[in-house]
């Protein structure tokens, strides 16, 4: 019981997420509007929030460097999407007279994202203009460029060869039965990998004589994780299959989790956010760290733009509006510190899903969109207040 309380204290947002999910589920079932956990809705949750997860991951790195935020991500998404759609639909993958294909167009979009991010990153990192101001300028300028490129019109539809990579489902055309089978097998393989990784790390710890957690707790956790995975893949199988975007999200989340938690440059991010002077005097190139965080934000904004283009099957002038706020909110709900140096990719993922479930649940219940905003604002403030207060009580730094 004591241990259970400890877990609760360590992962308050995870517990809150479970409660919110159950709360909405019960409410939705009771009002006869289906179920939060209906297969179609699980898939919806993922496709609705895919771009937020990608953007929030990048935003986390910016926040880690010292509580700075990037306000321009929404506009970057729109500008990249505008270029992408123009290239693919209008110019037929022909860029400045060079005939390419959909891959070169995607590569160009990613390059543009990195460029947009790097321009801002240069001013932030090397001239030390406050990120808030630089990205506010970027938010205006990039949106303007996007409107010019789009001529304030919507470009659609996107060709199947493009949407196939970001918005389709696996396996493609097959019977419902085999779709469920393949889904479940994939889920089982992922579960096996998760269990293997956990066991391997435990064994290597034991071999090196380090403390390990109670074996019963490990299995209990693994059972819960596997149940969630199998449940999700069952839903995919019951619906249209495994969303391709899920694979992309998995790659992004795992890569950045690894980067922040297990690598030297990741450690530098936290050190810089925790105490920039100390980091500098430890031989860390803090300008470089800052540059990377914002340039990387541009890259991830481009990835998010590709996902959005596929999801909406178009690029349009208001694309990406207020996306930056979704990303920032997700980071803070996920436990990132507004002063930098604290926050994890896992927490951000939880924060994103939390916001997503809130949106999704309230929409299904038919709650007025205006009230939805009020609720989201209140939740954001509550989460951060809770975080600050719980740290104060602990008496930590």
């Amino acid at each position, binding site marked *: 019981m004591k241990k259970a309380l400890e877990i609760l204290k360590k992962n308050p947002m995870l517990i809150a997420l479970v409660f919110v999910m159950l709360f909405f589920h019960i409410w939705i079932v009771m009002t006869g509007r289906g179920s939060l956990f209906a297969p179609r809705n699980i898939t919806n949750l993922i496709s609705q929030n895919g771009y937020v997860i990608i953007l929030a991951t990048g935003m986390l790195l910016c926040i880690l460097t010292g509580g700075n935020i990037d306000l321009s991500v929404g506009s970057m998404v729109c500008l990249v999407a505008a270029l992408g759609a123009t290239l693919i639909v209008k110019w037929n993958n022909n860029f400045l007279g060079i005939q390419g294909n959909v891959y070169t167009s995607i590569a160009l979009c990613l390059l543009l994202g990195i460029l947009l991010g790097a321009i801002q990153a240069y001013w932030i990192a090397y001239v030390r203009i406050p990120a808030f101001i630089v990205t506010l300028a970027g938010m205006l300028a990039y949106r303007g460029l996007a409107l010019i490129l789009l001529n304030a019109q919507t470009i659609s539809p996107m060709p199947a060869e493009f949407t196939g990579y970001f918005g389709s489902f696996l396996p493609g055309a097959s019977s419902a039965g085999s779709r469920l089978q393949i889904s479940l097998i994939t889920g089982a393989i992922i579960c096996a990998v998760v269990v293997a990784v956990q066991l391997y790390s435990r064994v290597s710890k034991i071999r090196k004589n*380090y403390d390990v957690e109670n074996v019963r707790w490990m299995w209990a956790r693994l059972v819960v994780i596997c149940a969630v995975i199998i449940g999700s893949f069952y839903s995919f199988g019951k619906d249209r299959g495994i969303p391709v975007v899920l694979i992309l999200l998995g790659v992004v989340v795992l890569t950045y989790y690894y980067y922040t938690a297990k690598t*030297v440059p*990741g*450690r530098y991010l936290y050190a810089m956010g925790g105490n920039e*002077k100390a980091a500098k005097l430890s031989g*860390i190139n803090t300008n470089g760290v800052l540059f990377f965080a914002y340039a990387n934000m541009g890259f991830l904004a481009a990835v998010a733009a590709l996902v959005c283009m596929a999801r909406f099957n178009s690029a349009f002038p208001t694309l990406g509006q207020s996306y930056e706020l979704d990303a920032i909110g997700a980071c803070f709900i996920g436990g990132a510190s507004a002063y930098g*140096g604290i926050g994890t990719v896992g927490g951000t993922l939880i924060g994103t899903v939390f916001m997503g479930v809130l949106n999704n649940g309230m929409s299904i219940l038919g709650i007025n969109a205006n009230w939805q905003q009020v609720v989201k604002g209140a939740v954001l403030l509550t989460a951060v207040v809770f975080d600050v207060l719980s740290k104060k009580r602990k008496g930590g*730094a």
Partner: protein
Amino acid sequence: MKNLLQLKGIVKEFPGVRALDYVDMNVAEGEIHALVGENGAGKSTLMNILSGVYPHGTYEGEVIYDGEVCRFATIRDSEKKGIVIIHQELALVPYMTIAENMFLGNERGSAFNLDWNETYAKAGEYLKMVGLKESSHTLIKDIGVGKQQLTEIAKALAKNVRLLILDEPTASLNENDSQKLLEMLLQFKSQGMTSILISHKLSEVSQVADRITVLRDGRTIETLTKGTDDLSEERIIKGMVGREMTSRYPARTPHVGEVLLEVRSWTVHHELYEERKVCENVNISVRRGEVVGISGLMGSGRTELGMSIFGKSYGQNIQGTLLLNGQEVHLNSVREAINNKLAYATEDRKGNGLVLTEAIRINTTLANLSKVSCMKHLDMDLERRVAQEFREKLRVKCSSVEQPVGNLSGGNQQKVLLSKWMFTEPDVLILDEPSRGIDVGAKYEIYKIINDLVAEGKAVLMISSEMPEILGMCDRIYVMCEGRVVAELPREEASQEAIMACILKAS
């Protein structure tokens, strides 16, 4: 003469250290009373108690002012009684005018209707009283530090001051401005004001003070009175430093080898004001197995010297030659300095040294992550083992190496900071105030670590404001004053009197 202020048996403790130990002090009405003592003797602490910065209840003893016992809870309480303190670091807002600053927290008019006419008129009067010929509309950032000091005094006058406390008022002033300020104090005295003057500049103290109270190690040593006692600088120094030297420093037999670090004609300019030189033509050397001390008052350029050597982490337009192991090197970044086996442990461990929110493990390896990683992938198990080893070697008291360093005591934080730099395996360590703000027991342990380091054949350059520490630990001592090295004393010739004399002669 009647006593305006009596401090009786004041005891103030900070975690692990007793800053004031039954201090008594009497200040007579209408006198200039000087308070002298080394850095860390407890002068500022005492004044902070008097002015209510440390509220009643956080200390023992009695403050009797104007015949009644005072229990100040805030600075405002003491200011209401006419006690005003002017701190060493001026508390002025750069982008406000002189008049606005003068009445900050003491505004004219009502809370919802500031009376700017009265503000500026009154400000003009007070400026005349302190002899400052500036418009009260001038912004603080546009006047020099001497005039800012006068503004502070005018601000105090505006609060109807009866007891004015000046903490090192002339520290940042030139000779001319200092003299003016002292004359003004004498003039205020003739008008009946009482003041307490805290100063390192003993010539000034003997010039203006009626009585001098000497503090040492948080105790009142003596009070000298003009007319009856000798108020010469030598006499004051004797009171300040006349300490019994017991074995507060672990013994060490030096085995001095070849020169590891040499700095020649080193000149550093201030980071913001390029024309100001913080180090000028400095020549120093440190040998293998040697602890070399740099002594001097605060602001003498010691830290700036250490940091500028360490990969130019301070200052601009740095000139001079740096030799490591006899080879000339150009270290343009901290990374290069670390790679050339140089380390600098900062004086400000919370601000510049440690990431307080992070664990001991993470702080220990931060300056040398390549040693616990492979292709940028961190080996956390190895890292934990490294942190564990240092924790045991330096005897850091903590629940585990995963504890955030923000929760550790000062002494243990200092040990983590030392671990961090020892882990970079340097040949030369520059230790800036290695025992600042830590208790006596932890100090001894730090000293032992320093001795172990030089026994391993490393060289230590120790910057310290505490003279006993410099004398107890170092084989050779450089004395710095105003950015220059004014003396080099071997251990045998060094004494606190000798060091003080060097500083006073140079300034």
